[in-house]
């Protein structure tokens, strides 16, 4: 059993990223889309940590950035859910297809 290297981490994060993209593009439910965004952000987090660990082991920049991303993701989720709830109150739907008022 060989060592787990940077390539393995990057493969996982890439898979996670594209799963997130796929989910964001195909799901019509806004909550699911929000979850997909979380997946994309987490793919970024894995990248940060992996690069930090393998390329600059004696620094902590990547870890700090990960903490920031998690904080921002939490804030973003709160705002997004607030928007979704308001949308639901107005339209009785959280389908992304129905939320096209911004066009006009």
């Amino acid at each position, binding site marked *: 059993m060989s060592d787990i290297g940077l390539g393995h981490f990057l493969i996982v994060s890439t898979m996670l990223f594209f799963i997130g*993209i796929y989910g*964001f*593009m195909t799901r*019509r439910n806004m909550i699911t*889309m929000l979850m997909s965004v979380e997946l994309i952000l987490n793919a970024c987090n894995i990248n940060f940590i992996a690069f930090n660990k393998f390329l600059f082991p004696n620094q902590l920049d990547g870890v700090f950035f990960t903490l920031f991303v998690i904080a921002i993701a939490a804030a973003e989720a709160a705002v997004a859910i607030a928007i979704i709830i308001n949308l639901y109150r107005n339209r009785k739907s959280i389908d*992304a*297809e129905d*939320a*096209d*008022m*911004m*066009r*006009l």
Partner: protein
Amino acid sequence: MSDSLALLLVPALPLAAFLLIFLVGRVYFPKFSGILGTVIMLATTVISMATAYKYFFVTGKVDGVYQHLIAFKFTWLPFSENVSIDMGAIMDPISMVMICVVTFISLMVHIYSLGYMKGEDRFAIYYSYLGLFTFSMLGLVLSTNIFQIYIFWELVGVSSFLLIGYYFDKPSAVAASKKAFIVTRFADAGFLIGILVLSYYTGTLDFETMIARLTVPGSELTAITTAGFLGVSALTWGLMLVFMGGAGKSAMFPLHIWLPDAMEGPTPVSALIHAATMVVAGVYLVARLFPIFAISCPVGLDVVAYIGVFSSMFAAIIACTQTDIKRVLAYSTMSQIGYMMFALGVAGYGGENGLGFTASFFHLFTHAMFKALLFLGAGAVIHYVHSNDMRDMGGLRKHMPVTHIAFLIACLAIAGVPGFAGFFSKEEILTAAHNSNPIIYWCAIATAALTAFYMFRLYFNIFWNKEYHAHHSDSHHGDDHHHGEAPWSMKAPLIILALLSIATGYIPFGNFVSSDGQALHSEFHLTSAILPVSLAIGAIIVAMLFYRKKNAVPDKIAGTIKGVYTGALHKFYIDELYLFVTKKLIFGIGGTIAAWFDKNVVDGVVNFSATVGENFSDTLKKMQNGKVQSYAMYFFTGVLGFVLLFVFLWDKF
């Protein structure tokens, strides 16, 4: 008063009258404007007469030769060191004669109009326009610079346009003013090109320098005569184009068509502008450049002569058939200007050869008197009868005796009956023609006979023929005919001009105006006068037989020469020809092509770009559908594009 001040005042006073009446007078003292304009005109006349007197008898002559003096000149638009447009005043015999004629006739018309135009709505405007015209005409004759003359030339054209269109609520007057403006503008385009050609080769716009450079052999003269276009030298082209401008203003064939229509203006205006002063501007222009014509370009002078004599005869034939009295006079004017033109055309430079030059100006002078008189007389008749048509007139000699006598004197003068002014000037022209060119001489003799015939046809039709009965029905105000012949303001100019139509003939004109400034003593040959005088008297007798009593002879004669008669009655279809050329050929064929080009090519390009823009924006509009996921798709595609770009292609740049 010094000459420069006087010659500054001469054009400036009418300009002041124009500005004063136009800006202030028409609002605050419309009734008084006429008197004001007349008084200012009187002052101008006195000043110009005094200046001319001083020039001719005191200062002008040095060693028996009249000098070209520059009274004042200032540079207005300098182009380069030697080429500039100046504003100035020249003093030489022809300009002095012209300012006298212009101011005097203008004064007469100012006085006459006090009566004739009384009660018109735009009385003050009328007087302001008269002031504008007089200013422009005086500026024109005093020009020292060919470009200055062009500027005033256009100003004269504008005032003519304004005055022809004075009755702007009458469609025919509007059409006539437009026609006059367009035809003369067309000619002036040639004039401008001519100026450019001449000034390009001579390197100057100044008359004296230009004449000096083009008459004395030198590099400029060699350059302009060797340069050519279509086998004609640049000098001839330049002079012919300048003459084209002159022919347009002077209503020479084939640019004469505006003059008869210009009679739509008020009659005193016709007398001032379209008979006595403005239309002789072309003659004046040729005379101004006469040394160049005579010494360097005799071909050009021949063209002037033939166009003059042809116009003269052409107009005389048409005048025999017209029934509108003002149109008869218009054609007669054209005919007489043709006389002046060919008199210049047959003249040479200096000495006895210059007889035609003197004769031309002599005729210009006498013609101004009797033609103004004829128009003012016709105006009085129209004032009385309320019609322009000679068929509505007849037997007026008892109703308007003063007009009758004055008109008769003018007719005798223009017919060339001995003792009257026209006789002397016409005799001189005929002698000049006889000495140089037999074709022109015989044409001129024939024209003289025709002139006598149509003038007396007019005279007998107005004052004899049938008895006059006032048509109360076609007059709006029935008591109009009780106003008598005419007010004194109208009669006085008639009487003055009638006296001058006799007296001016006795002026020894050769002493004052000649081609080279030296006095010319023209001998009077009794033998050469016999033929034209007997022809003129014969023509008068024929006219008397035809028209004194109403009879069937004229119609019978007209019937036998039906072709010529109908042709002349329709002015030889020149108007129709021009309409055909402009409407059918230029606007018809050229217009169709232009319209096709406009509709298909120009509009096509515009419509095409609009369609492309519309389709493109439709596509863009569909992209913005409000669906957040498609936006994410575009975004992601873009990012992917950039990634591919940076990863695979970046190095290659």
